[in-house]
Structure formats: C-alpha cells, structure tokens
C-alpha cells in the first residue's frame, strides 16, 4: 500500500504478532505497520470485521492495537521503540490486558 521515499534514518525492529518488522525512528506504530504492508491492525468488537488505520491523526480509533500487553492503544499516536511487541486486536478487548 505504501513505500518509503528513501531508506535513510536509523532503523529498529519490533514484532507484530510475533513476526519481526523493520521500522524507522519517527515512525508511529500504525505507520510502521502500513510500511510493512500489514493490511489490517484489528477486527471490530461489533461484527468482527477487519480494519486498518484510517485517519492517522488520532480521531478514528481504527488503528487500535495491543502494545506490550496493553490493549486498545491508538497506533497512530504511539512512537515505535526497539523491541516493541505489537499484537493485532481481535474483536472485543480482553479485560486484564
């Protein structure tokens, strides 16, 4: 869906559902997932259909993911960190994570 203009900038690695992806400092989690070609980041709690980032400015809440064990984080507002563990969020969130 997207490609990077150039590969400059320091890179780091995070995992999405256990699979390592490369990201660049300055990326947000949502953008890193888009750049890695991951086509959806969650399924909805109502009809369980897939969703991907829509607005990238913190208002649509379609980029909700589980980050380091904490669910329902807005991927477009969270900067990536080396070793970050991201999980796609499936349906309703589980209390306690």
């Amino acid at each position, binding site marked *: *869906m*997207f*490609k*990077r*203009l*150039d590969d*400059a*900038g320091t890179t780091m690695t995070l995992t999405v559902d256990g699979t390592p992806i490369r990201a*660049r400092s*300055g*990326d*947000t989690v949502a*953008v890193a997932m*888009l*750049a890695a070609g991951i*086509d*959806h980041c969650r399924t*909805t709690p*109502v*009809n369980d*259909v*897939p*969703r*991907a*980032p*829509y*607005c*990238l*400015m*913190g*208002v*649509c*809440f*379609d980029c*909700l993911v589980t980050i380091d064990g904490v669910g*329902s984080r807005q991927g477009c*507002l969270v*900067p990536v960190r080396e070793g970050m563990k991201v999980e796609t969020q499936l349906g309703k969130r589980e209390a306690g994570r």
Partner: protein
Amino acid sequence: MTEASELAASYELVVIGGGPAGLAAATLAAQAGVQTVLFDENPGIGGQIYRGITSTPVRDRAVLGDDYWAGGALADEARTSGALIVNGATVWTLDPTLTVGVSIAGKARLIQAKRVIVATGSLERPFPIPGWTLPGVMTAGAAQTALKAQGLVPAGRTVMAGSGPLLWLLAAQLIRAGAKIEALLDTTPRLNWLRALPFTPDFMISPLWSKGLKLLREVKAKMLVIPVGSVEAVGSDKLSEVVFDGRRVPADLLLLHQGVVPNVNLAIAAGAEHRWNSRQLCFEPVLDRDFNSSVPGIAVAGDGAGIAGGPAAAERGRIAAIAAVRALKPSASVPDPQTARNALQREESGRAFLDVAYRPADAFRRPTGETIACRCEEVTAKQVRDNADLGCEGPNQMKAFLRCGMGPCQGRLCGLTITELIADQRHTTPAEVGYYRLRPPVKPITLAELASLPISEAERKAVER
C-alpha cells in the same frame, strides 16, 4: 519528555493543540511573560498542516511546498518562546471551572488554568460511502500525514476521490514525491461553480487564487481527473476495486477527502455554545472578535473556530493570545491586535468562494441503505433513517437507541452524518436537529487513571454507602 508528575498544579495559560494557532498563541503569550503550557497529543508539534515540521524525513523541499516549510518559523519561535511544550499529552477533559484533565504516558493529572486557548483544529469531514470502512480506504489527510511525518508514499494502484483544495494539494505533493495515482475522482457538483460566482471577486484578490490555479494545472497535467456522481469501495477483507458511475477500477488504496470541519469535541464538552454554519455545513463555536467562547476564560482559535486554513489559524491564535495576556497581565506589552486582524482578513477573504465551490454533494453527506454511518458501532444509514421515522428527533435519542456515537471515537466520524440524516429524514434543518451532547473523557483514559484523580470526602460519600 515531560512527565505528568513534572507538571505544575496550575498555569496561567493552557494552550491545547500544537498546530499553527496553538504555536502562535503559546509563543505570543510566553514572550509577554505569561506562564504558558502547550499540550499536544502527537509525538511532535506542527499540528496536521505542519505535521513533522521539526522531524520530517522528506528532504526535497519542493515536494511539500513553501506553504509547509513556512511552518518551520512558527515551530522555532514556539520552542524558544519559554512556553512549556508537552507532546504525547492527551487532554481528555476541560470544564467551565478551567480544570484541564491531561494524560501523559498513561498517567492522568488535573491542571488548573486561569485562561485556556483551545486550538484543536479541524478534522476531515466524514465521507460515508459504501465500503469506506475497508482496509485500503483512508483519508487523504492520512496519506499526507504519512508523507510529511514519515516520508511514506502510496505504492500500488492508488485512487483519490472527493473534493476540496486539500485534495488537490495532496495530489500535487504525491506526484512530486513520485507516487503514481491511477485517477482522481472529482465529486464536486458541477453547479457549485455557478453558485460560487458571486464570491469570485473576493477570491481573486486573495492569495488562494493564484495558488489554486497553479495546483489545478499541475495536477490535471499529470493525472487523470474524472468528474463523478457516485463512488463505492469494494472488497471482501480489503479494498479490491473502486466503483464510480457504474465503472470499476482495480485499486489497492483509495484516498477520500471532502473538506475539513472544526474538531469541536473538547469545546462542546467544555460547555461552549455552538451553532450550525450552513455555508461550511458544520457546527462551530459561537465566538467574539477575540475568539472568546461562551464559557468565560475559554477561547477557541484556529480552524476549530471555523475553517480558514493554516496562516489564518496562526493569526487567530495571536489575537486570542493577546486577549488572554491583557486579561492576565494588563501591564504586559503586546503587539497591536489590529495587525493580526488585517492579516486574518486577507487570509479569510477567499474562503466564501471555496466553501461554496467545494460544497460536498448531498449524496456524499447523507448516505442511504446499508452504508455505515457510525464506524465504531457499525450503525447503518438505514437504521438511523428508520429510527428517525419512529419519532427519534435528535442525535442524543438516536445514540440511546442505536449506540451511534458511543464508540471510542465519540462521534467524531459520525456526528455530522447522524445530524444530517435525521434532518433529511424528518424534513428539518441540521440547526434544528442539533449535535451530540458530549461528556468527558473526550478521549478515552483508563479506569486506573480516572481512579488516581483527587477525591473529596463529599464525592466519596456520594458513592460509598
């Protein structure tokens, strides 16, 4: 990186939002010696228009254009102005007592302000077409954010659709960045241009005129532009093709845009009076000439006060800040607001023309059938229309019946659609129908954060029995 615990209990001025209005306001106030804090929920300042201004990996200045880089000066001034700028700070409540609830890295604080300038800017108008919730469908603004902040450009088969200056600007930026766009589907109703004629004189003297023409020419030269009356996103688990006027094109990415509208959630939750703007088709706060809202001490500057664009937003920020400084420190020396007012008038002069010329078609604002109106709760246009027929007069009753607006986005992506659908179905005006009643938190916070707030004995007694 400032932490919640490092914040003072109170500030003279709290500015909410780090776009042009917020930056200009914070700069002016801080330089006048007012103790100022600026909260912005994004990782960096600049807002949406100057997104990533201090960090963008895009080297070639031509790609984003001079108007973007103009934001650099604003950012530099702000950072040296003495104002405390806190990024990654989400403001989730603001009330008439000027208590500001802010959350930073999962820690919540209540801050007392003497004055507040809300500069939460704008967001893109909902674009409820069939399939707009599919992965692969995004707002044009999202693509622009990815370009500015992270240097991402669309790859694969990309289609743009919609109306409005920003769509054309993005198209030009993407072309310059080397992206390949299959087509731009122009949803602007043809008749708009006739309706806009009366406003042309103003527009021709405004700076927008020449810029606008240049953009149109640049884009039309490099991209297939097709006027359309309908757009549909089709696909099972993600976008596979775009259907327009009965024609189909395969697509991996569809970028939607039909103008921007004020981001009113915080101001409404704070109790500021709002009204329907029938030319811009959105709700906006009721403000005086210094951008003070109906709630004493709270001003709303920037596009949140009504859409006028980046440079205008900065001038509004300055005007609001001057009023704030005069109230807080009558002795402090401030620039003459008239300068800003004049500049603002220049910037606003062409607005009316653009509003009318790019007024989105009813068909793209008032969906029918199974098209989703509320993305969070997956409520369809038909459900909303049916319940309006049942006697449901307004968005708040509708919310109770269908849960539309009850999801995490708290109505930001359905509010206008629901209001317009009810108006349409009950043959009345959006002004009559009104908007969602909004309550804190305007952005979700965790129970633990809420639980950590100070509690008075009376408040505890109200619950414990």
